[in-house]
Structure formats: structure tokens, C-alpha cells
């Protein structure tokens, strides 16, 4: 297998900062996103010297962002209260998922947004969620089932 070189952090950051910021905005809302963005890339920076190769860095960035967003929301949210929907002025296609997915359990929400908003495949979603591919598929499909039940 060819080793894929790890790019200098500046390149990794420039390649992914905008999409990770957009993802965090969708996933967690603006207030959380601003802090979560910094925390995501600080965590990436801390872990960066331990990377063994430069493959799947995009999915790796999503995985860290997902965890940070979930942690941040848990930290900020009183138990059992559902999140406010993030208000956003620029609404790309995937933003339409916001009002639908806002109160799904965090993992299901992330899986649905990554699959249908960002078009990631299940291997990458699994990597982003730190789970198996099968678990990622299940999270997305149970999220979709939950949404469907709600709409009928």
C-alpha cells in the first residue's frame, strides 16, 4: 500500500476549514459552531503528530468536529431539553435538513446530515462518527425512519 504523506497542517487546515465550519453551523448552530470550530482544529493539531498517514483526513476532520459538536451541545444543554434550531441566513441545499433533523439524537442527526447533506459514503461517515460502517448505516436509517414517522 502506498503511504500517503501527511500534509503540513496549514494545508490540511486550509483544505477543510470552510466545510468544517459550515458543517458545525448546521449541526450545532452558530453560537456553538464558533467555539466548536476552534476546539475541532486544536484537537486535530494535538493529534496531528501521531497520524500515521495522510489518508481519510477529510473524514477524520468530520469525526473530530462531530464529537466536539456533540460534547459542546451536551455541555450547554440542560438534560432533556431539545435544541433550538440554528438560525442561518445563507441556506445551501443541505440546510434544508436543519429544521427536520434538529431534534434527532446527536448521532442519528450527524449521520443523516453527513449522508444526505454532505453526500459522504458510509465508510467516511463511520470514520466521522468513530463507529463501524454498519453502525453508521443504522444511525442514518433509524434517523430517516424517525423523520418519516414524524412526517406522516
Amino acid at each position, binding site marked *: 500500500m502506498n503511504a500517503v504523506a*501527511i*500534509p*503540513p*497542517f*496549514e*494545508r490540511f*487546515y486550509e483544505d477543510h*476549514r*470552510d466545510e468544517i*465550519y*459550515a458543517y458545525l*453551523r448546521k449541526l450545532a448552530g452558530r453560537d456553538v459552531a*464558533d467555539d466548536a*470550530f*476552534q476546539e475541532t*482544529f*486544536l484537537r486535530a*493539531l*494535538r493529534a*496531528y*503528530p501521531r497520524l500515521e498517514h495522510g489518508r481519510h483526513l477529510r473524514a477524520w476532520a468530520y469525526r473530530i468536529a462531530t464529537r466536539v459538536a456533540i460534547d459542546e451541545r451536551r455541555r450547554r444543554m440542560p438534560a432533556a431539553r431539545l435544541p433550538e434550531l440554528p438560525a442561518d441566513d*445563507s441556506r*445551501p441545499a443541505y440546510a434544508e435538513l436543519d429544521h427536520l433533523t434538529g431534534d434527532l439524537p446527536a448521532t442519528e442527526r450527524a449521520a443523516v446530515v453527513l449522508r444526505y447533506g454532505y453526500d459522504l459514503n458510509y465508510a467516511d461517515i463511520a470514520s466521522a462518527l468513530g463507529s463501524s460502517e454498519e453502525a453508521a448505516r443504522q444511525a442514518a436509517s433509524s434517523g430517516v425512519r424517525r423523520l418519516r414517522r414524524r412526517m406522516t
Partner: protein
Amino acid sequence: MTVPEKIDVAFRDRAASESLLDVAYDLTDSPIGPLLVAATERGLCEIAFDPDPEEEVERLARLHGVRVLRSPRPVDEARRELDEYFEGRRQDFDLPVDLEALPAFQRSVLVELQRVPYGQVDTYGSLAARIGKPKAARAVGGALNRNPVPIVVPCHRIVGSTGNLTGYAGGLERKQLLLSLEGGVLV
């Protein structure tokens, strides 16, 4: 959607203040053209003329570690001292330089070179003699040619035995400019 500048700047600042970087760098203007200035925690490790940032970032990562990030604060002091130097208000740099990534011979040449005072010139042969290798004038030239921190480590003050400028990695025009800024006498 792009990251708001404020958030981007805050991240770059924090990465440096939490000591998470192998190298911080920034770009700056100078009378001899744009410069890329880079520092490790130990000190200034690179000044590049006419930089191609992408290429420089790759090089810095190879030499010092992959955590290279553009982050202005750690190189603020270097920028300030360079500004003062170009305005003729500074003769010696107080900045520490980090030469640790260099081969021992080159490091010894550059350390000795730092003793050549502002406004004076010396020769390759004399520098070679001073590091105890009187026959290594040519190798000294090679070491100077790859000096990662020109200006601050003053390779522009080294000339040929007949007083001709000989060469400069940043171009002879820059060497001439730096020497005339310092008011050095060219024999």
C-alpha cells in the same frame, strides 16, 4: 460558507499560544521585497525572499515537523526587528535563531558568521580559517548559500578575497542593497 476572519485569526493565535506548533510563519513586506518569516519555539528558523508560500510550508514541515501554521504573533518580534533594521535604526538582532535542524558544519559556519559586525565585510577564506578549516572556503560558500535566515545571520557581509560580491542566494542586487544600507565599505 467561509470561516469568519475573526474565528480564523483566533484559532491561529490559540494554536501558537498553546504551544501546539512546530513552526509559525507569516509574510511581510520589506524594501527588498516580500519575505516569509518563520519561527520555532527556539527561535527564528527561516527568512525567505520572494517566497512561494506553498513550497516554503512543505520545506518547513520537512525540516521542523508537520505542524506548520501561518500565525502572525510568534513572528511579530522578528518583523519588528527587521523593520527597524531596514529603517537603519537597528544594527544587531536580539532574536534568537534556531539552527538546530542544520548539519553541524553549516551550523558552525553560521554561528561564526554572526560575529561579523554590522557595516563590515569579511571573506570566505577568513571565515573558513576562523572555524578551523582554512582550506574549506568553497564549502563555507555552500553553507552560506543555504543560509535559512539571511539578513539576521548576515551572509551578505561575506565577499570574495578580491572584494567582489561573488554571490548571494537572494540575488546580488539584494546583497548590494543590504551592504549599502549598512554603509559598508566595499574594497
